[in-house]
């Protein structure tokens, strides 16, 4: 397997005056309460994970859970108190200021919750800003920025000022700006949280379209569990600075690791989240009906067809090869039965 693009090893972020010393004394056994009594606040507590190339990791947590702090540690907007962070094998915390600036100019892009556009620059100037900071000639940077304007569908508004745009449009500018330097790693800090529900959905779809095209390595922060399920390759659920569970959306829904995670999954309509392959039996029997369903189909889309069958249904992959089977009762159990057990 290729090297992970982002790799965190036991990352801690603790706010407070003697944070560093207290962390050393605690021997990696950080208890938020004792720290708080000593005037320190634990932001991130022993976070270890990897993100591989082209993967989208969504970090989900409620406010105060440390998700934004974790992101800021990895982009080094704040320095982690302990642990190691590697970006493409480079030790992030050892980088000198100049190297860090180089890294940001070429490899990283970030989108912010409140858009964080520069009020004195037009749309196209905002997008060209990171390029100009790099020292690229004005004409080149503007023409490159114009491509970005088209990519996010803002053509015709390139000479508007941020104050003249709606929230959704402003965030499109934010996205375009973060992509202008063609970064490998893309950080998004609750990019759609400040938007209206309808616009949010539209932007999520737009975002998926972009990611389909660009295949960036992404860390995406959100407090919205549904958003996490919709977008993520893998989800990390955080609480009080600790990563409670890090897994694929299906596994989180089917096997919540802790009580806290389970509470989130309770209300989730499983038929909309789970794929056929998540619930199928990998063993195949001969006694299959005529119907065949694709393994990466969402349950909701095929449930009606399967439920009309009496026998088990064959599950095939994209090459039309049978990889498993699914019984109609399994569908019923998944959709209606699962929750009862949890009560």
């Amino acid at each position, binding site marked *: 397997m290729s090297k992970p693009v982002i790799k965190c090893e036991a990352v801690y972020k603790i706010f407070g005056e003697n944070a560093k010393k207290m962390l050393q004394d605690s021997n990696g056994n950080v208890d938020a309460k004792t720290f708080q009594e000593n005037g320190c606040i634990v932001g991130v507590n022993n976070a270890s994970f990897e993100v591989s190339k082209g993967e989208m990791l969504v970090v989900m947590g409620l406010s105060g859970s440390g998700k934004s702090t974790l992101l800021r540690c990895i*982009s080094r907007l704040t320095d982690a108190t302990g642990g190691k962070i590697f970006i493409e094998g480079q030790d992030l915390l050892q980088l000198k200021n100049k190297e860090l600036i180089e890294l940001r100019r070429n490899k990283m892009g970030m989108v912010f919750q409140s858009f964080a556009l520069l*009020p*004195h620059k*037009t749309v196209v100037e905002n997008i060209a800003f990171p390029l100009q900071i790099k020292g690229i000639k004005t004409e080149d940077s503007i023409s490159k920025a114009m491509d970005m304007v088209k990519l996010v569908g803002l053509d015709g508004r390139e*000479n508007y000022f941020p104050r003249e745009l709606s929230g959704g449009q402003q965030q499109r500018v934010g996205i375009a700006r973060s992509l202008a330097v063609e970064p490998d790693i893309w950080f998004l800090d609750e990019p759609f949280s400040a938007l209206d529900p309808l616009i949010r959905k539209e932007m999520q779809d737009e975002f998926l379209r972009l990611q389909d095209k660009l295949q960036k390595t992404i860390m995406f922060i959100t407090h919205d569990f549904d958003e996490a399920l919709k977008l993520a390759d893998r989800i990390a659920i955080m609480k009080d600075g600790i990563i409670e569970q890090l897994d694929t959306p299906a596994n989180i829904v089917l096997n919540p690791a802790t009580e806290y995670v389970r509470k989130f999954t309770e209300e989730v309509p499983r038929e909309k989240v789970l794929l056929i392959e998540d619930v199928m039996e990998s063993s195949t029997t001969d006694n299959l009906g005529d119907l065949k369903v694709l393994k990466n189909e969402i349950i909701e889309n095929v449930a009606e067809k399967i439920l009309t069958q009496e026998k088990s249904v064959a599950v095939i992959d994209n090459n039309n090869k049978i990889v498993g089977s699914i019984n109609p009762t399994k569908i019923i159990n998944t959709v209606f039965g699962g929750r009862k057990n949890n009560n």
Partner: protein
Amino acid sequence: MELIKKYPKLFQWFFLLIVFFALCFSIDVPETYKFIRGQAEFVKDPNQSSFVFLGKEVRYYAFDVFWRLPPLLGWLPIWINDSLFFLMNEWMPIEFWNEDTQEFRTRPLVLQISRNLTAFMTFLIELIREILLGGLETIVAFTSWDWIDKNPWAELPGLPWTIVAAGSAILAYKLSGKGLALFAGLVMVYISIFGQWKPSMQTLSFILVAAPLSFIFGLGLGIAAFKSKRVEKALYPILLVMQTMPQYAVLVPALVLFGVGDHAAVIITMVVAVPPMILLTILGLRAIPPEVIEAGRMSGCNNWQLMFKVLIPTARRDILIGVNQVIMVCFSMAVISAFIGAKGLGFNLLLALNQLNIGLALEAGLCISLIAILLDKMSLAWANKQTDYFGNLTFYQRNKNILFFAATVIIGILLAYVGTFLFKGSYNYLFEVPHNKGISTADFWNKGVDWIFDTFFVYIKAFNTWLIQDVLQPMRALYLRMPVVATLVLVVGAGYLIGGIRSALVVCGLTLFIALSPWWDRALVTAYMATFGVIVSCLIGFTVGTLCFQNKHSASFMLGVCDIFQTFPSFVYLIPVMMLFGITDTSVLIAVIVYATIPATRYTIEGLRSVPVGLHDAATMSGVNKFQRLTKIEFPLAFPHMMLGLNQTIVFALFMVIIGAFIGTEDLGQYILKALSDKKGAGIGFTLGICVAFIGLIFDNLIRTWVEKRKKHLGIN
């Protein structure tokens, strides 16, 4: 007992007052007490005691310590004077090359620095003055007198008034629009026609030098304070004192360091104008959303790029509001600096007031006020103007203002040239209207004043006598009757009750400084005048503010009026009161009241306005009537903000009381005025200034602490 448990705070205040009055009544006035005490300039009197500190002998009339503290700080002004003298004349003699005599000369370092700085400032002022008015000093500075005699063409001709007037109108148009352009044009024409052109341009040149320099220093220090906590901590106390120090008092040390004239005034103006710029820079930079800074960092900005490409443009509005403040402070200093010989409108005003020529003073004052409003409106318009996209405009559209200005320059020069033929033998009115050749309404005003005096003399006199005999003098006597111990107990007790031990200590320190200085009695007189002014101002301000608040239009109108009145330099307020009440305490107090009512009114309206709409609606739905809503909802919530208004009112009142010394009062201001004409006045003037600042800071500390607590309690920010 029940009551005490229910209102513990109230009982504590009550107890404090009892102790205060008990002390007042139990301590008698010592027989040797004289209102005028030992000062820095001593008359040898066998009744005086003396002490020696740091080699300075301080003499004073000894009193019972409970009554008045001995002036233990009396050595401070003398020491400051001696240190300044030593710095200027003896410290670090170094050899300097003298351009005139072509030889090395030994001079103390500070003196040389001061001379060089002075020369530099003089050069800048002359340069701008000559661009506006014409002259040859600047050319001479680069060449020599001989050269200019041979080449008389090189003398700067100065701009005809038509060009400056049109120029300001075009600038106003660019910044705001037709309305302001019309106003700018009219003001300039008025100035010119009434023969105030030359002094106005002198004042303008003063501002054109002082304001940019103050801006640069203020911005730089503001950035430094934003980046480093240590710098901020070091700057904070200075900023605080400078906010409450009367501008007048800063002039005195300037005299010693830089001498008399425009250059000294410019340098000292910077000292006064930089603090607000620093404060607004810090404020603006702090107000930037953290995500914008992060966005800048993630775009790969280094520190330099982050500051100049992200932070400062984002904080543009606050920084430009700072520029507005700088310009207004510079303007007001330009007027007051007349006391140390700065030329311009202030000088004419001072002259007219000294001659009691109210008509002339009114004309100069009107001129000052108009320019103040114009400068204020224009700089505010600049701050509020948003950048527009201009990439798709044609060359003409983009540069039309510059083109227009170029056209007016040509037309103006042509007009002035035509003028030389039109007004052959007399003054060229199309170039400049000389000071005494303009239209003057002075006679009219003087006659008006005489008429008012003749007609209403009896009433004014009666009012005056009543006020002085039945209100002011008893009040003054009461203040002077306070033993120092009682005052200390009252102030420190109030500090403790409001802000705990920390506030009590701060307030105690500030009060002790004044009590140990030789001017405690004077400070009491200052306090009495300020108190009287503040009480009346607050009554008027709160009433007017509340009444105006009842209607949206009247509230906006009143705020507009406050805006305009606030732009006037405080000195201007003395003109109308002198016109009506002559040279008495009443005049000063009325000026104080008018001036201090501005913040009282403004903060009342703003406070009432800041009550959230939701609460307003909730109260209405609970069925309150207008009066109930005012007393139960709006007043309690607006009260903290109104108290901040009180704080401003006190500072404004103190400023005016001090300037009132010009009319003649017996308070600290009188001594500051005296120090201005005293060779050894620097130390006294400076210490007095600090005393006044400390009076302001005592109230500032108490009120701010209270407001912060109250706001936290109410949950408003």
